[in-house]
């Protein structure tokens, strides 16, 4: 059976998806929902290809990294399959780790322009009506290191917790020393001052 091929291009990057439609779901002949292979071609860089189970994590890695890059000071994405970290403001190092033994990780350096091209290719893939992929919730797949940074970003606790603790401790320590007004004691004192 002939497989369908769909390509997405953005300047120096192209993404090719190869697969078949799911006829049991009455899909059209030109659709792809059973992806057998994908290829990511970045100009002047080695070809990146793999199976369907690798495509989702790689797309997520790029999206999460780009979000961290724009929102954080020091972005870093690490997982079993792919690491992305910045070399400087302009260059990013991508380390692709093979699941096979004895295969060394592949390191690719890309600039901001190629990063933008790659993410725009993934955007085209996500928006394409011809490819039906199980959309993964990006934030469920955030690796531990990235999650930690996201938690750090929650400044809500940093802002409200210290004054709350200080108020509570002040109340706790001052309660034993609280002075209650006793009118009888006051009366006695007045009598002592003015014996008449």
């Amino acid at each position, binding site marked *: 059976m002939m497989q369908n091929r769909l390509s997405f291009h953005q300047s120096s990057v192209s993404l090719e998806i190869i697969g078949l439609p799911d006829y049991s779901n009455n899909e059209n002949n030109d659709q792809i929902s059973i992806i057998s292979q994908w290829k990511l071609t970045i100009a002047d860089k080695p070809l990146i290809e793999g199976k369907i189970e690798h495509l989702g994590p790689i797309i997520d890695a790029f999206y999460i990294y780009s979000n961290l890059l*724009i*929102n954080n000071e020091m972005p870093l994405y690490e997982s079993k399959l792919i690491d992305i970290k910045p070399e400087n403001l*302009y*260059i990013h190092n991508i380390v692709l780790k093979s699941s096979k033994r004895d295969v060394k990780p592949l390191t690719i350096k890309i*600039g*901001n322009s190629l990063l*933008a091209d790659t993410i725009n290719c993934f955007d085209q893939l*996500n928006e394409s009506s011809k490819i039906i992929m199980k959309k993964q919730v990006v934030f469920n797949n955030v690796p531990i290191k990235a999650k930690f940074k996201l938690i750090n970003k929650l400044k809500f606790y940093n802002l409200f917790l210290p004054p709350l603790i200080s108020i509570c401790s002040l109340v706790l320590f001052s309660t034993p020393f609280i002075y209650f007004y006793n009118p009888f004691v006051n009366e006695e004192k007045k009598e002592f001052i003015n014996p008449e």
Partner: protein
Amino acid sequence: MSNRLNLNDVLPNKVTIWKLRNNNPLRKSFINNNIKPDEFDALIKIAVELSRYLYPYIREILRSKEDPKNNSVIWNDFKKRFIELINERFNINNIRVKKLLNQTRNDEILIKSMLTLSLCISNEGYQKLKNFLLNIK
């Protein structure tokens, strides 16, 4: 462009856009008009449409800075023009504007701004840019 994006009700003419621009507190002509949510959305839609149109230029500007061996002429031209515009239109006594004008430290701001625009050219670019803007520290 506002015609094409069906924004005629919010942005009927250029003067409306000019007035909205003056909501920027960094501008010399800053007037606090309290921008409305639909005006905010309309400006984001225009920014996304413009970045889609200008993507090849944005990409070249980013690329020209990537190779340190090459003399980044495009980057230098862009930065020069950016600083000229800031000097001309922004309140240069403001500390944040001074930061934008700082030649040694403004690279990061410029790169992140260009990268943000270049990532928002898809059909869902409007939502992306809005999220980026609302998440800015």
